[in-house]
Each structure stands twice: as C-alpha cells, then as structure tokens.
C-alpha cells in the first residue's frame, strides 16, 4: 500500500467516524433534501410549460404558496428562474434556459 | 365640554380600582374587550382620570356591560388594571345611587 492510499484510507475512516457522529443531522438533512428535490422539480416542471404566478404554481403542485415563493426566491438567487411580467397583483416567474436539474 | 374635578381620583381610593391614572390611553382595553363596544372601558377610565364625575354618572349603566372577565387587565401594557378600575367605578356608582 503506498503512502497516498494510506492517507486516503485514513481519511475514509475519519469520514466514516464523522458520519457516525453526525448521523442524526445527516439523516434529517437527507430527508429534507429529498423532499426539496421533489418539490423543486414539480415547480420547475410546471414552469416549463408556461410562466406562472405563485398561486398558480401552488394550485398546480399542491405545495403551499409561501413555500412556493421561498423556492422561487432561491431559484432566482441561483439563476434558475427570472421574474417575468406582472399579472394583476402577482408576478409571473420564468424558467431560464440554462436551468439545470 | 368636560368639566374637571381635581380631587375625584383621590376620592375614588376608597372604592378600589384606584389605578386609573396609570392608564396611558393606548386603547388596548377597548379593542381587546370581548364586548367590542365603542370606547368601552377606556371611556369610563378616561372620565375618571379627568374627574368628570357627571359623565360617569350619566353613562353609569355602561359600567355593567363589563363581564369582569379580566382580559383587559391581563393585556394592559401599563398594568393599569382597567378591569379593577371598572369594578371600582361600579362600587362608586352603587354607593352614589344608594346615597340619593
């Protein structure tokens, strides 16, 4: 076993240990991320067909409207959507072309 | 016009509920009161503050709207105990009725 492998193995061991120590947090985060992926996907999928307002997305996806807005604000921050035209008192949100996932 | 009696608040001491002057008239008691009735109970408390005896006696009946539920006293930001002030006024009015 060469020295590099040895270091790698040691790190793997340490990571395993760390994962064990933080098990509770990791499980919680993983569950949360799973849920988030699902919801994010649903929102984006709906937006693929047409720009939409928060209530429209909420109606279509069944995700509570405050949560929809929270996702949209974040997606906007990371460049996946942009704010579009205003419709009454609401803005429509538009998927950007480069949006991954 | 409301006429002021300088010593009324002190005269109220013997009827209890003598914290009326501690109220800073924010209106919480009126708005929180389950009766949802105009300015009640702050209106009566205000008359007491000013010593507007006549106004209190004219409107005395209103005092008995109070359910003595204590919500106003519990939520009063000044801890001026509006509920007890109203009870004190009831006693004052009853004493007044009995006197006459």
């Amino acid at each position, binding site marked *: 076993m060469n020295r590099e492998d040895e270091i790698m193995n040691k790190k793997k061991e340490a990571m395993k240990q760390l994962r064990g120590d933080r098990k509770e947090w990791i499980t919680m985060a993983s569950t949360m991320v799973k849920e988030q992926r699902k919801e994010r996907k649903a929102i984006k999928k709906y937006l693929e067909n047409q720009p939409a307002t928060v209530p429209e997305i909420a109606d279509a996806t069944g995700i509570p409207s405050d949560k929809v807005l929270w996702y949209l604000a974040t997606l906007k921050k990371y460049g996946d959507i942009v704010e579009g035209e205003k419709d009454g008192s609401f803005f429509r949100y538009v998927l950007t072309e480069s949006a991954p996932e | 016009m409301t006429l002021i009696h300088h010593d009324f608040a002190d005269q109220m001491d013997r*009827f*209890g509920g003598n914290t009326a002057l501690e109220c800073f008239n924010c209106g919480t008691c009126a708005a929180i009161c*389950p*009766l*949802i*009735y105009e300015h009640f109970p702050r209106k009566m408390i205000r008359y007491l503050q000013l010593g507007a005896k006549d106004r209190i006696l004219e409107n*005395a*009946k209103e*005092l*008995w*709207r109070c*359910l*003595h*539920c*204590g*919500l106003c*006293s*519990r*939520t009063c930001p000044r801890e001026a105990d509006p509920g007890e002030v109203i*009870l004190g*006024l*009831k*006693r004052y*009015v*009853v*004493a007044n*009725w009995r006197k006459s």
Partner: protein
Amino acid sequence: MYNPKDIIDLIADNVKKTRSPFGIPKFMANTWWKNASVARDGEALLFTGLMYQFVPYIDTTTHYLERYEDTGWANYLHYTKYLPKLISGTGLALMTSGKEKKRSGRILQDIVKILTKSNVDFGYKPELDDYSGILLYDLGDQDGFVRHAENVAANLKSAGIQKVITVDPHTTYALKVLYPRYTGKSFEVKTYFELIDFSSHNGSRRVTLHDPCFYGRYLELSDVPQKILGKLDIECVNVRNSGEFTNCCGGPAESISPKLSKEVLGRRVEELQSTGYPIIAMCPICLANLRKAGAQVEDLSSLIGRYI
C-alpha cells in the same frame, strides 16, 4: 339593557332575605346530595357554592329577560323594571323544569365520584354549603357582598372548617382570594380537579377546552385540567384565546343584557367550534351559556366521570 340598579337592588334584596341571588330558598335548589353517596365528614369540606344548582334557574330567567329586553312597549309597560322581580323567588323555581335541575345535580354527583376515586378524604354538609356572594361583588355591591361573605365565612369557621374543595371558578375565586381580603378569614381552597389522582387509557380522543376567565386568568389554573386529561389519553386542542388569554363566554352579562351576552357568546362559540372537537367547560355559567348556543359541550366532570 336592563337598569343595573334594579337588578342589583333585587339581587341584594334576595341575598339578604334568602341568601340566594335568585330568591330561591336553599332547600329547594340544593337537592343533589340526596341521591349521592357522600359522607358528611371528612378532612376537607366539599363546598359547591350552589352555582351549579342555580344554573337551571338562571336559564329560565334569561329566557324571559331576553324576550323583553329593549322592546319599546316592554319599557312602556314598565316591564324592564318589574320583570326581573317577577321572575325570581319561588315563582322562578316553579317555572324551571325538573329535567334541568337533575342535569345539574348529576355534575355534582360526578364530582363526588371523581374525588372518591382519587381517595380524597372529604365530606359534604348541605347546611354549610352556601352561595358565595360573588355576583354582588361583580355587580359592585361591595357592602352587600362583604356582609354576606362575612356570614358565610363565619359559618364555616365556627364549624371548624379549614380545607375546602370547590367545584366552580367563581366560588373558588371568592373563597380563595376575596374572602381573605374582605372578611379576613382564610381557608385552604382547592378545586376538585386539582385533587384528581388517577389515570386511564381508553383510547385517545381530542377535546377543546374552554378555560373560564377565573381559572385561566385570575387563578392561573388552566394547565391543571390539561394535565389531568393528558393522563386519561385525552388531548386538549387549544384555540388561540385560551389559558391566561381566554375569552369570556358572555355569561356574566346575562342578567343585565342578554342581548350583549349572546353577542359575546356567539363569537366565542365560533372560535371554540373552529377546532371541530367537542367543547369542555368547567364552570356552570359557561356550561349553560355554551349549551344555549347549541354547541356540543359538556362539563369537565362529566367527561372525567366516564373514565371511572
């Protein structure tokens, strides 16, 4: 709205003459114990303050008062003045149905069962069980209240009573807070539910508690019933205005303005019903009032009584 002066005079007069606010002699109203197996002697005295017993009469009174309040010709006929007088005393007793009276009695009988199950050493002496006078206090008849309270307290003291078990919030407040303040006589006062000591697991259910103002705010006792129900697998679903911030049921306004009382009641019932669960009351006035609004409501003692 009725003239408070008339009501106060009437009640004060009734209490003076009959020691009952409605002018109904005690022997007529307080009959529940005859059908209950309750000892006379015990370490603590069960003191009902007769509130539950009066409820059926209050209902009847309100029914009439409501009919004539603020009607122009009622005023013209001087009904506003004479009506309250008309519906008090034995006349009132005759107008009130026996069924209602029985229902009230059952609550007290349940309380006896609950205390017994909790191994509380208590007894009941009808001759010592008196009206507390609280209504006079609330209405501002301070002199009348103090006179009456001194009488009641002296009675208890001379019978050597130290510990008192109460069953309703108004009487509890009177004995625990007002008597020491205005009569100088103190007792060790506990409500019956503070003494409950048993648990039961019969499958969970949910109820909505309506905290009475005196328990929730003045006496800060509302966490006690919650805990006891928890021991019985009963979950309490709280509305926003509960505990220290509970909302009045409107009951206390009945004698002065049934209309006002009804408005307040309506708002409170709406809030309580919003949970969708049955409502639990623990005060005879709340109980009667909420029932009047057609809510699905029962007394705390009735609910607990079923778990014995």
